[in-house]
């Protein structure tokens, strides 16, 4: 066994390697995104890449601190951490400062700190903690309700901060519930309902309802035709039809105008390339102009000359796409997917249920950010401003994602010690 050889022999160097690679890629591309001739020294703390270097050093210190802390600390204090960040989420609504329309920021020593980023980690911890409790089974309604509440309470508070993007991220934890035994219908609904919603906006409703009824009829025809099944099919049919009719109303009355525009842009119904469609169009131009091998480091014209908005934060993938082309973009996508798969495999090798569920939580949150962010820059997702983990510029998100990951690495390194 390896327990004698110390912490650095037990940590999973593959994941740490992937993490370091992503952080390095991130810094390199932030440098490229904000590069200009007057500020080109790599250590320049007036520039974003200089600041990001400080963030990275701080993140490394945080990571090492976590690796030193007793691995049981996080499961023991999960509820306390969760409570702390819930409190901060509420406090920030009243005392935080507003950045880009959302009131989720504390200003500490000149740097903005966004509690919502850390709340994801806290929620993943508590969810794992709760699901690992002996008498909890997701099949029980009570357990499901509590699990849902654990996820939804911080999500709702973040939503109230007008940070819709971060709020939606919490829903990613449904993957953890699924692994814990939640019926597949619910995660499926998370995928099917948005698709149905898009169809509802694109197709005439009567046609869509007819299709749904046909599908329902098909299910009934091939089912065992027991009363319970029949009622279920009827209920689901009515539910989806009701959803179809409510989508229009939701889009037109509940969403805010800029969110509504983003939906229209995604559906190709808004071709105003100078208005709501500008970001996605410029993003596609930057990525698309990269070609197979890219324009080369610091040679990207679209990002360098600010045609792409938010190019060091939410749209950082444009810089990668433009300067490194299909080759570089693919490498990045593969690195990410490799990280997620590795995390799942690591989670599965945990003996402790807490560690396993937490590992799933880490993978879910990172995966969700990755999907939404890159999907957005590629015009496959609506514009939802959430960062690309480890790559996007910003201290809060880098630290939060680092803490999120290293808690799991810490758990994993002591997986043999725990029963």
């Amino acid at each position, binding site marked *: 066994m390896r327990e004698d050889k110390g912490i650095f022999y037990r940590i999973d160097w593959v994941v740490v390697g992937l993490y370091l690679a992503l952080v390095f890629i991130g810094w390199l591309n932030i440098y490229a995104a904000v590069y200009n001739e007057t500020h080109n020294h790599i250590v320049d703390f007036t520039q974003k890449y200089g600041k990001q270097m400080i963030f990275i050093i701080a993140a490394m210190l945080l990571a090492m601190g976590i690796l030193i802390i007793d691995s049981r600390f996080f499961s023991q204090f999960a509820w306390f951490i969760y409570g702390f960040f819930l409190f901060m989420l509420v406090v920030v609504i009243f005392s935080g400062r507003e950045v880009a329309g959302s009131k989720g920021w504390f200003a500490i020593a000149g740097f903005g700190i966004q509690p919502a980023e850390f709340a994801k980690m806290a929620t993943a911890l508590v969810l794992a903690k709760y699901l690992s409790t002996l008498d909890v*089974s997701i099949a029980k309604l009570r357990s499901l309700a509590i699990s849902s509440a654990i996820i939804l309470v911080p999500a709702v508070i973040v939503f109230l901060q007008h940070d819709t993007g971060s709020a939606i991220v919490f829903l990613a934890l449904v*993957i953890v519930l*699924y*692994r*814990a*035994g939640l019926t*597949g219908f619910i995660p499926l609904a998370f995928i099917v309902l948005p698709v149905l919603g898009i169809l509802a906006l694109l197709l005439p409703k009567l046609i869509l309802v007819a299709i749904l009824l046909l599908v329902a009829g098909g299910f009934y025809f091939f089912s065992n035709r027991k009363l319970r099944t029949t009622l279920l099919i009827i209920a689901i049919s009515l539910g989806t039809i009701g959803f179809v009719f409510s989508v229009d109303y939701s889009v037109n009355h509940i969403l805010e105008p800029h969110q509504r525009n983003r939906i229209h842009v995604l559906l190709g119904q808004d071709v105003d390339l100078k208005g709501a469609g500008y970001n996605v169009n*410029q993003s*596609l*131009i*930057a*990525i*698309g*102009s*990269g*070609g*197979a091998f890219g324009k080369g480091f610091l040679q990207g*014209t*679209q990002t*360098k*000359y*600010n*045609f792409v908005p938010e190019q060091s934060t939410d749209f950082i993938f444009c810089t990668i*796409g*433009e300067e490194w*082309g*299909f080759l570089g*973009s*693919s490498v990045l*996508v*593969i690195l*990410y*997917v490799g990280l*997620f*798969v590795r995390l*799942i*495999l690591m*989670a*599965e090798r945990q003996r402790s*249920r807490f560690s396993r569920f937490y590992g*799933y939580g880490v*993978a879910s949150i990172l*995966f969700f950010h*990755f*999907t939404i962010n*890159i*999907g957005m820059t*590629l015009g*496959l997702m609506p514009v939802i401003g959430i960062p690309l983990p480890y790559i996007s510029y910003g201290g809060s998100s880098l630290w939060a994602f680092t803490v999120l990951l290293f808690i799991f690495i810490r758990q994993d390194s002591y997986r043999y010690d725990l029963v």
Partner: protein
Amino acid sequence: MERIYADRKYIIIGFFLLIGLLFLVRLFYVQILVDKYILSANNNVLRYVTQYPARGLVFDRNGKLLVYNEAAYDLVVIPQQVKNPDTMALCRLIGIEKTEFISRLQKARNYSPYRPSIFESQITRDSYGFLEEKLFLFPGFFVQSRTLRKYTYPVAAHTFGYIGEAGPEMIAKNPYYRSGDYIGISGIEKSYEEILRGKKGMKIRVFDVMNRDKGSFRDGRYDTTSVAGIDLYSSLDADLQQYGELLMTNKKGSIVAIEPQTGEILCIVSSPSYDPNLLAGNIRKKNYTRLLADSVYVPLFNRALMAMYPPGSTFKLVDALVGQQEGVLSPDTRYGCPGGFPLGNGKKVGCHPHPSPTDLMGAIQISCNTYFCRVFKSIIDNKSYLSTRQAFESWRKEVMSLGLGKKLGIDIPGELNGNIPTPGYYDRYHGKNRWRSMTIISLGIGQGEIGITPMQLANMAAVISNRGWFYTPHVIKAIGKSDSMNVAYNTKRHTLVDPKYYDIVIEGMANVITGGTGVIAKIDSITMGGKTGTAQNPHGKNHSIFIAFAPVQNTKIAVSVVVENAGYGATWAAPIASLMIEKYLNRTIKRKDLEERMINGNLINGKQPESERGQGNILPD
């Protein structure tokens, strides 16, 4: 119990892989399959700034500069970059009112806040020098330089032609041209466009999202430098051209002078004309419209190349040449003149009183109508041909070999063919083969359907002085320093008339000057051959025509003069031709009285002397 859900990891991993794959496919599509994003990216940041080369200059045959370029400056504004302008100071600098300043700035802003608009076009060089020093005070304003065509002498407008922005059809036809490029539209500017224009260069500049210039693209790796246009050395004689235009003041018509031994055109005067500077730069549009609307003077019409006149009696020279070639005429052939040539229907082609009978030389000297009607009749009725038609076709071929009835192919666009009628024309008019020599007898004295341009007339004089050959007349003798020239202008073209037949005609023409219809053209120190012509036309009074060459031996200049509606050839055209020859060969004019009378003669809206009014039906000449 949760182990039963362990298999779900495959579903979850599968889902992760699916999304990753979806992104890879999308990236492949966006980055590799479609190229519209590359184009859009270039449109975003790259501005192609054309480097316009200086257009080639034009010199005259003595090295005098005729056409050159002058820098012109446009004051350009980018409204977005204008900051707290000292409006009053700028207004003073360019001399406009403050309200005008505000409205121009607003107009520019309406066009685009980020793109440059012309604020004041073609600032003079003086105010540019002044402005340039102060320009840093006015952010957002800058000066763009262009070149304007300038002409040293306000003459030869039709020959030079003009340049203007390339039109949409041209841009569609020739990929070299882009919107805003200049192109030669007429004259040598058009025919030598590809030589004069040089080669455009292209600088690629990078602009950021605020339209700020961020320098050259990839350190100028893809920039191309412009290559200046090549200078043209023209055969024009600037003094002669100027003098010709002076003589043609207030007259409609033209003067063309050619150096017979080379085919080089010495001058082309088409009157009325205009100052070529009027059609340069931004005043062109306004002036062009005005010139185009002038239906009295029709100044844009190049009569030297585009007007056809019946050659009148000058055509008798052609009769003399073709008649000898066809074997129906010899220097000794004598015809009597009973005061005209009877047409058989009681009418006759009249002739003026003169000693009779005459031989060929005498007939040329006194321009006997009867004699040349007989010559023409004998050509067409020549028994060695099977039919009138065949004889006519042979006549036509030989006439056309003298450079008549077909474009000469000179290096100025717009030349007309002229007209030597075809047998088919008479078939249509009189019925197939239902025409005889008598039907078309007026051709013999250069009337009827014959149409000849002044350029062709001058060339005909050159052909005679050369005894049967010519170079295609041309106005450009050398391209650049290399003396290179289109081979078409270096190739001798021979007529179908044997050189030996020219001697008698040249002698006759010399006698025209020494003791014939053209004595008025006589210059004591210069031997000269000439022929008068008086062309009937449906537009009013007869056209006065004269062709001449001098000296008779080793000829230096052949000239044609047409003065519209001016009367006898000897009255206006002959003296003008004579003065042109004197000017060219002697460089000074001794006959000041004659010169003054010619310059002051106003045949467009002035009164003419009583003695020149009232012409007979067929004219003595």
